[in-house]
């Protein structure tokens, strides 16, 4: 399963897990752009790569060594076409 790790403005890191229903209407990159705080760099990784038993506070990624896959978008909402797809899936 793919997840998103992003770096906050206070240089801490967070782990973002997409829901299955969201993955039915959007890619993980689209979800990351929506849910990652604006301007924060993010990396898409496989969850199996995360070391178990390590708290999120211990996560660190060197941006210079591993260029981010993207940055959080300005909007915290999906584009209209994805929302329409989601509502149609829900019978709207």
């Amino acid at each position, binding site marked *: 399963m793919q997840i998103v790790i992003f770096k906050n403005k206070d240089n801490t890191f*967070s782990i973002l897990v997409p829901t299955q229903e969201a993955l039915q209407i959007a890619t993980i990159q689209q979800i990351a752009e929506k849910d990652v705080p604006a301007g924060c760099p993010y990396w898409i990784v496989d969850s199996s790569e995360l070391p178990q038993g390590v*708290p999120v*506070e211990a996560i660190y990624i060197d941006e210079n060594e591993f260029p981010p896959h993207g940055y959080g978008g300005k909007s915290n909402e999906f584009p209209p076409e994805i929302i329409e797809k989601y509502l149609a899936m829900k019978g709207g």
Partner: protein
Amino acid sequence: MADFRGTILTQRGRNLLAKAQTGATLTFTRIKIGDGLWSTETDPTQLNDLVSPKLNLPIQDIRVVGDGTVRLRFVITNTGLSQGFFMREIGIYAQDPDLGEILYAVAYAGDRADFIPSDGVTKVENVVDIYTVIANAQNVTAVISDTVVLATKRDIDELAQSLDNLSSQVNSQITSQINNLTQQLNDTASTLSNQISTVKPEAGSTAPTLTYTGKLWVDANDFLRYYDGSAWKNIKVNFADTVDGFHASQTPTANTIPVADSSGKIADGWLNFVANDPKVKTALNASGDAPIYACRAWVNFNGTTSPPTIRASGNVSSITKNGTGDYTVNFAVAMPDANYAVVMIHTDCLTGTWVPKVLTSTNASTSPITYTTTAIRIGFGNSSGSGDVNVLSVAIFR
């Protein structure tokens, strides 16, 4: 009857007859009768008119006899005659192309004349035929009057014979035509009868023995079927705008069946949505008068794993683990505003007893404090720290 001894051509009559022999038309104009007494000196060939004319009589009929003579028919009547007279002389008048009307011929009865009484008790209507010479004249006519017509027995007999012949001919033709029409009608009726007998559906529990393509049959269940040349098939009816015979429409209309539009949806107008409709509340097991409100987003996840494990969700696009006991629930579709109610419950803290709360004030300057239309940030902890929880349920109501 007066005894006239034949007609005598006048000199002018002879001259006109001579003209007629060379092609001029000989036209008789009228008859005159009179009571003139001829003396021994009277030369009838030199007469230009009767000695004593009494009546002008129109010619009723003319017939060329064929022996050089012509028969002129006129009627002697005393209608309007104020004074009777002896009919002694008859004058035949004709039209000369050069002289005008002339006395063509005369006849004289002398003392063998008849008396024509005045109009009164005695009525006189005599048909008289008088013959005169026309020799070989080819063009002989007469000015025929139709004011008085009296027919002889022979005329009537001839007319009757003509009528009989005509009647017989007409009857024969009509009978022939009627016979022809009758035969045509019989043929048409026979043809139609054959066609109807073969086209009309047969009814019965078993299929008709007479079969041909298109043959119709009403079976035991009253279904109309047709023979396609090899088997009996059910007739299908294509009603373009009906469903099972009922009118259908995409537009909400009384007494119609709704049909979906091109996208497969039925127009909203067909359904009457009412807030907190009792039927809806009953379907949701919501008894009583209190209204019902919907949960707009929810999620059940395990925050102790890395990454968090989402068990199930609704209208949630992702869960973010910001730190120990610190999560953000991101909505797939935004709330109408941020005044929604948050319901949270958790089980199984890894360490200690944590209090769930919506994070609104910690590290506001560096870490986003989220209580917005698109996400909510929640945390678990107490005065000594924070911790992850195993089963965390979050529901949003608005």
